[in-house]
């Protein structure tokens, strides 16, 4: 399989290898959707939750330019908007032989549904549908419904395919 060396997920896997599992930066947002759909949805930036004081030196040693919580180098753009998730779950699994940490599919669906409902973002509506279609037989439905209730998006969970 031909692989692009500039692949942002290859970079994420390499970055994650600097941290133990419970301290790895957590991939969230559109690039998490891209990963979970294996590229069928796409996003430009990598949004990471993690300790910026620990991540920044690694990025800066690799010639990333920093502007506050934003880092960029070539085609890779990284934002570190927060250092913790606010109650959401994350999962650690393997990508390209290295472990990475990603917000769980259920919470990512809820995040997208919030964008769909409260931001009126069609892009987020589509992402939610793609994730739900792809993982519907694997989801923790009890958790998904509870999170939807808490975030006031339950009415959007009735996807039709």
């Amino acid at each position, binding site marked *: *399989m*031909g*692989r*692009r060396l500039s*692949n942002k*997920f*290859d970079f994420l896997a390499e970055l994650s290898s600097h941290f133990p599992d419970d301290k790895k930066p957590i991939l969230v947002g559109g690039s998490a959707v891209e*990963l*979970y*759909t*294996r*590229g*069928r*949805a796409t996003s430009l930036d990598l949004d990471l939750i993690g300790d910026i004081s620990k991540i920044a030196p690694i990025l800066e040693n690799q010639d990333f330019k920093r502007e506050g919580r934003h880092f960029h180098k070539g085609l890779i753009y990284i934002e570190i908007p927060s250092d913790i998730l*606010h109650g959401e779950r994350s*999962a650690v*699994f*393997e*990508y*390209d032989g290295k472990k990475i940490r990603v917000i769980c*599919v259920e919470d990512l669906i809820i995040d997208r549904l*919030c*964008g769909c409902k*409260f*931001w*009126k*973002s*069609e*892009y987020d*509506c*589509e992402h939610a*549908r*793609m*994730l739900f*279609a*792809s*993982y519907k*037989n*694997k*989801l923790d439905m009890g958790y998904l419904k509870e999170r939807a209730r808490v*975030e*006031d998006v339950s009415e959007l969970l009735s996807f039709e*395919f």
Partner: protein
Amino acid sequence: MKPRKIDKTDGLIRRRPRDPAKIKIFCEMAVEAVEKGVIFDENNRIVRILPWDDD
């Protein structure tokens, strides 16, 4: 509800949802991609996501 920043798509000229048929195809493409390259354990937890190119 946590406060959320302004939607990047606000104010753009797209005002109608995309064709539902198109979204259905996107979903089918994603389903196929996950079937091909996401490995689960017996508890439906993801163990591995395989890199993709044009699969």
